[in-house]
């Protein structure tokens, strides 16, 4: 017996005394978060390398005599001649539900001062996107809570919908509204005890933003009670470009965990313009050949491989992506915007002019599109809002012509009146997403002409009153719309009666 144990112990001792092989190199230059290293002859592309002092690098340029690495972490202690070793591992980040409610950096380390994150699972930051066979077409809606979007540019679970516009047009607000709406739906769904209910978890990736803006976003999510369903990945403007470059991929890895484990997740990349700029900076320091606007040749692949990771998987969950792109002077034909437009399944274009006119969210109906279309809409929304996009586009065209002449026929005048009312109706304050059943009720009232007697400038007020009426007094009816998701004759009659009741009370 003791001989057997001795044999095993000897074997263990042999193993522990076994020499460990490492492949090493020496730093030749360090500049702007990028190191050029001699040696590292065995290093693999995208492999993690260990620098002295605990800093980690990623091998991005494998050349004949040297390796170009981006450094994640403190580079102030690194100097020429320092030894660098390979790790044999790809960069991975912690994943799982333990991350919910937390703010992490691009390596998954907590930065919110709430203590360590207890998670055992790690996912690689770079991963090949799901292939064709495992994918399923997008058909389940993901409600943003924004009436203009849910009724005209619906987003489905697993879709990639770009949010594009100039600075200060409300791009981030739309995504935060969406995250808040998911949290609201989750709370209602979980409380209902419905076993078929699938919550949507959110990941918000902040790239190159001011820390003050990130804090404001976290505060807005916390105030709305949405932080407990959200992971924040922060790579602020002050972080080195390598961290900014990696943050979206880290966020995608965290989202993939939900998708792979049969859950639904939403990921917001805020924003990919700054991500492209960070990548351009790294590429220029690595002396990669530059092309249009000094971006490297693979800047399209940078975003396509990221956004392709959003999908709806057969028998598993989904990952919906809402990338944000900031345009300059409304130029959607610039390099990065056109790239991302071509990758995504549609875009929501926000216009500065509309924003300044007080139309918020400033969604440009003409330029916005969802390529998934009505497949990602519940039937009730289709019933009440199916023709809205066409009507609104027609209104904008007519409104442009109406500026040149005052003599308009009655039909045109009516169309303009109706269009104006729809525009007013779609105005919505920030961080106040509307449940889909309430949207259906408001759109039903509009379709049935309940706002026609209301003065144009009072439509917003009337809509608010209608919403308050339904939320306060017709809770059961709203619950019916939510569960049935289709307006049958009975529901239509009830809605009609409720609207008439509201009209009577509002008129008095």
């Amino acid at each position: 017996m003791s001989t057997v144990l001795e044999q095993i112990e000897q074997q263990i001792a042999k193993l522990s005394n076994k020499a460990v092989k490492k492949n090493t190199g020496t730093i030749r230059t360090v500049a702007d978060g990028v190191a050029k290293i001699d040696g590292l002859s065995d290093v693999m592309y995208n492999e993690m390398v260990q620098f002295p002092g605990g800093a980690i690098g990623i091998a991005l340029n494998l050349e004949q005599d040297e390796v170009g690495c981006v450094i994640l972490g403190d580079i102030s202690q690194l100097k020429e001649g320092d030894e660098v070793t390979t790790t044999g591992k790809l960069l991975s980040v912690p994943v799982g539900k333990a991350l919910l409610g937390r703010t992490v950096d691009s390596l998954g380390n907590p930065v919110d001062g709430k203590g360590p994150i207890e998670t055992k699972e790690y996912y690689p930051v770079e991963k090949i996107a799901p292939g064709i066979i495992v994918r399923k077409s997008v058909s389940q809606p993901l409600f943003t809570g924004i009436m203009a979007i849910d009724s005209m540019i619906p987003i489905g679970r697993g879709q990639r919908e770009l949010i594009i516009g100039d600075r200060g047009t409300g791009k981030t607000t739309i995504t935060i509204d969406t995250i808040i709406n998911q949290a609201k739906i989750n709370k209602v769904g979980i409380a209902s005890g419905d076993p078929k209910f699938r919550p949507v978890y959110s990941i918000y990736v902040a790239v190159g933003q001011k820390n003050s803006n990130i804090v404001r976003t976290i505060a807005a999510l916390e105030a709305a009670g949405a932080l407990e369903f959200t992971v924040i990945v922060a790579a602020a403007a002050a972080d080195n470009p390598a961290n900014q470059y990696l943050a979206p991929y880290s966020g995608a890895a965290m989202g993939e965990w939900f998708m792979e484990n049969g859950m639904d997740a939403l990921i917001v990349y805020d924003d990919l313009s700054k991500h492209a700029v960070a990548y351009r900076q790294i590429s220029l320091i690595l002396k990669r050949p530059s092309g249009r606007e000094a971006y490297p040749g693979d800047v399209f692949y940078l975003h396509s491989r990221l956004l392709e990771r959003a999908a709806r998987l057969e028998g598993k969950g989904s990952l919906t992506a809402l990338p944000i792109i900031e345009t300059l002077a409304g130029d959607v034909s610039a390099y990065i915007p056109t790239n991302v437009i071509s990758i995504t399944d549609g875009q929501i274009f926000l216009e500065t002019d509309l924003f300044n006119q007080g139309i918020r969210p400033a969604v440009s109906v003409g330029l916005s599109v969802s390529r998934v279309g009505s497949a990602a809409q519940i039937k009730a929304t289709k019933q009440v809002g199916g023709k809205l996009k066409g009507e609104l586009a027609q209104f904008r065209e007519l409104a442009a012509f109406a500026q040149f002449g005052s003599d308009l026929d009655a039909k045109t005048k009516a169309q303009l009146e109706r269009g104006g009312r729809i525009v007013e109706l779609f105005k919505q304050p920030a961080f106040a997403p509307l449940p889909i059943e309430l949207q259906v009720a408001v759109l039903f009232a509009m379709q049935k002409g309940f706002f026609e007697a209301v003065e144009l400038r009072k439509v917003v007020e009337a809509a608010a009153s209608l919403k308050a009426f339904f939320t306060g007094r017709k809770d059961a009816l709203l619950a019916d719309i939510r569960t049935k998701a289709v307006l049958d004759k009975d529901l239509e009659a009830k809605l009609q009666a409720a609207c008439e009741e509201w009209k009577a009370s509002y008129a008095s």
Partner: protein
Amino acid sequence: MATPAKIALQEARLLFSLSMEGGVVSPERVAGVLEYVEKHRPASPTAVLKAYHRLIAAELAKSEAVIEHAGSIGEPVLAAIAAVMSKRYDRKVTAKAKPNPELLAGMRVRIGDDVYESSVAAQLAALAASV
């Protein structure tokens, strides 16, 4: 257009390839290359020679196993390591001992970019990192 640094590296690579004979660095050829550079000075001789030096040093390091050790080490051990490394790298490898008391016990063999670590200091460092 290639930068001066790139041109210097290309020239150094060319000189390096001329210095090799049968897959190893030939001292005679190196001497010949240096003589040639002395006579026909390139545009930036310092940069070319520095790059050439780096390439030759990296190549020579592949044929020499530097054995850092704490405590004494005998000739038979050096010869055994040299034989194992020659077999592993499929080239003639010589062994050179280098005392390093910081290892506490055991040894570290460095050959080219590869490091074989079997020292107490490394095990303690790994333990400290895992705690």
